[in-house]
């Protein structure tokens, strides 16, 4: 019987297998950031252990870093200590680091692909749950805790029980204005936040094949939001074209050998999955969340649901609590929900194509007076690229704030936070209670919806701008 994509990559990394024990997997790439690593390095120090493979490890600063005045010391002393701790650890253990101010600094899941370190067929881990982003290249990539970070630093391996396999088949052509973010939000609403638990999922089908690498990364990025261990996609010409020529991409004979191998990384026709899910991309519309988990979403054209509509009691209770937290009434059209803040950025939607898509919508408009909009590129290079295309000017002229790279308001570890009761449309990945600031209310949206929402001052799509008199630039 044939193998699935994930089984092929898994089997190629088994260092040791024994009855009654998890497989010992070799890790090809370990990405490190300041929040989940200090205790791991400390553990190494206490045990007198080195980092086994500094040449397969890379660190950056992203979660705590400010997006304003980055040439000055970090104002919050606790954040500064955490960042300084990473710098010291990187130096002591010989780990490459891209610090604030460096052109290759940025969100860990943006810089890996950007540098060409993320490649098909790898195992990639990071102390961050959005590590599945790298799965878009046909890698097995997943988030780990700090104990596991220490384990990988010390051994370059991880003991892992083999997950089940699931295929998510997404066929059909996306209607105009509908993005990969809408695909994944619609998927999570369909399968629920626990739907992927215990599975490595493979997203496939004509709608996936039609996406750019950046669009693919957005989908894999949110695999954890429906509980999946990892999400991946078979590499194809789009993948190879993306990797080729990047700083760490193979060259010459290595490139040929790599591509030959990468072409074998797809599920065999006779491979079977433990579960399958189907989604018709042709039926999708822009999708937004109304609640406090990423599964609580509806099409933008729909209304806030009535908790009584849910069959399961747990869902009714969760919906009631969510609506209370979100201060929303059942039956309210989503398009009538006003927002105070729009956040464009994050490892989900902070890449250059996301900024282009939003800038395209915003150009020639001004954001609503009542709205503040933060545009936070995912990496220093994305910021630089956007500036070379003049996107920064479009955003600034529209009244948005153009910031430096980092995780920023996605999780509010730096000063970019929502105030209590403030409502945001956010291109990030989590609408959890208090995620973007204590008492803050989050609606997850795509970049085009974020841009249209900023202009309208309420949730909306670019098509809603047609009747709006556009402000001359």
């Amino acid at each position, binding site marked *: 019987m044939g193998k699935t994509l994930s089984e092929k990559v898994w089997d190629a990394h088994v260092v040791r297998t024994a009855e*009654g024990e998890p497989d010992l997997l070799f890790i090809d790439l370990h990405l490190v950031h300041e929040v989940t690593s200090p205790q791991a390095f400390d553990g190494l120090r206490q045990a007198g252990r080195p980092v086994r493979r500094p040449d397969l490890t890379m660190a950056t600063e992203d979660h705590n870093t400010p997006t304003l005045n980055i040439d000055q010391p970090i104002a919050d002393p606790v954040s500064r200590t955490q960042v300084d701790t990473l710098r010291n650890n990187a130096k002591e253990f010989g780990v490459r680091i891209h610090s604030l101010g460096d052109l290759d600094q940025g969100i860990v899941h943006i810089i890996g692909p950007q540098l060409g*370190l993320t490649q098909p067929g790898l195992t990639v881990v990071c102390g961050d749950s959005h590590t599945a982003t790298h799965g878009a290249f046909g890698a097995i990539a997943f988030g780990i805790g700090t104990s596991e970070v220490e384990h990988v630093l010390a051994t370059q391996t991880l003991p892992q029980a083999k997950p089940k396999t699931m295929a998510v088949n997404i066929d059909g052509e996306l209607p105009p204005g509908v993005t990969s973010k809408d695909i994944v939000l619609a998927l999570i609403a369909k399968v629920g936040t626990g739907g992927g638990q215990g599975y490595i999922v493979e997203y496939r089908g004509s709608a996936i094949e039609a996406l750019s690498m950046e669009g693919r990364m957005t989908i894999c990025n949110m695999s954890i939001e429906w509980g999946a261990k990892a999400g991946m996609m078979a590499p194809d010409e789009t993948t190879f074209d993306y990797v080729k020529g990047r700083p760490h991409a193979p060259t010459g004979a290595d490139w040929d050998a790599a591509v030959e191998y990468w072409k074998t990384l797809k599920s065999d026709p006779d491979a079977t999955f433990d579960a399958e899910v189907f989604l018709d991309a042709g039926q999708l519309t822009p999708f937004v969340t109304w609640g406090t988990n990423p599964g609580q979403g509806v099409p933008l054209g729909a209304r806030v649901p009535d908790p009584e509509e849910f069959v399961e009691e747990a869902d009714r209770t969760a919906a009631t609590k969510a609506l209370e937290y979100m201060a929303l009434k059942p039956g309210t059209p989503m398009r009538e929900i006003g927002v105070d803040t729009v956040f464009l950025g994050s490892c989900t939607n902070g890449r250059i194509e996301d900024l282009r898509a939003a800038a395209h919508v915003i150009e020639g408009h001004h954001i609503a007076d009542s709205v503040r909009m933060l545009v936070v590129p995912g990496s220093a290079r994305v910021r630089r690229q956007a500036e070379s295309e003049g996107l920064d000017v479009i955003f600034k002229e529209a009244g948005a704030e153009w910031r430096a790279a980092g995780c920023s308001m996605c999780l509010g570890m730096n000063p970019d936070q929502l105030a209590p009761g403030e409502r945001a449309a956010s291109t990030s990945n989590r609408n959890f209670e208090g995620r973007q600031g204590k008492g803050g209310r989050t609606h997850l949206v795509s970049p085009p919806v974020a841009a249209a929402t900023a202009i309208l001052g309420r949730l909306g799509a670019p098509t809603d701008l047609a009747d709006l008199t556009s402000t001359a630039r």
Partner: protein
Amino acid sequence: MDKFATHSGTALPLRRSNVDTDQIIPAVYLKRVTKTGFEDGLFAAWRNDPEFVLNQPQYAGATILIPGPDFGTGSSREHAVWALQNYGFKVVIGSRFGDIFRGNSGKAGLLVAVVDQKIIEELWDFVESNPSTPLTVDLAEQTITAPGFETVFEIDPYTRWRLMEGLDDIGLTLRHVTDIDAFEANRPAFLPRTLPAKVESVS
């Protein structure tokens, strides 16, 4: 890590589902560089509410947490486990957990016991009626008992063995370092390395 055999203690019913790791400890509390001192951030958003179950005097000193389904979903922060441990919890009993949270718990020595949601409902009722009656969690027998109440819980055998033996995962893996050496020797040449660093030339 200390060996885990049995634990007896009073329990705290947390009647909420989908308590993700951002609820267990918000990001602003993650800035410490130690594994201690996270108890102040535990359930931070709810702690000021006197009605919140953690603030109810009858549950003071509880060491067993009983949350609703899908506890610990979301972010990979092991700080969520440390916050629970720093506060004094030794065991979490639930019907469904986030994968990473469950893995982190096993590594850090917090026992995650899985039972059917029906049992959770029974436990909630029992604990609410008898808040000062300790439950006993026996890892060898995989049982949770109280006067007039007994149930079996699930845990994967490998994690159970590691917790019972108090084994350090890294030490276990390093017993097989020759296997790692052999694997490394056969990795293809085209695989990427982070060192020496290559970056795009600045245009």
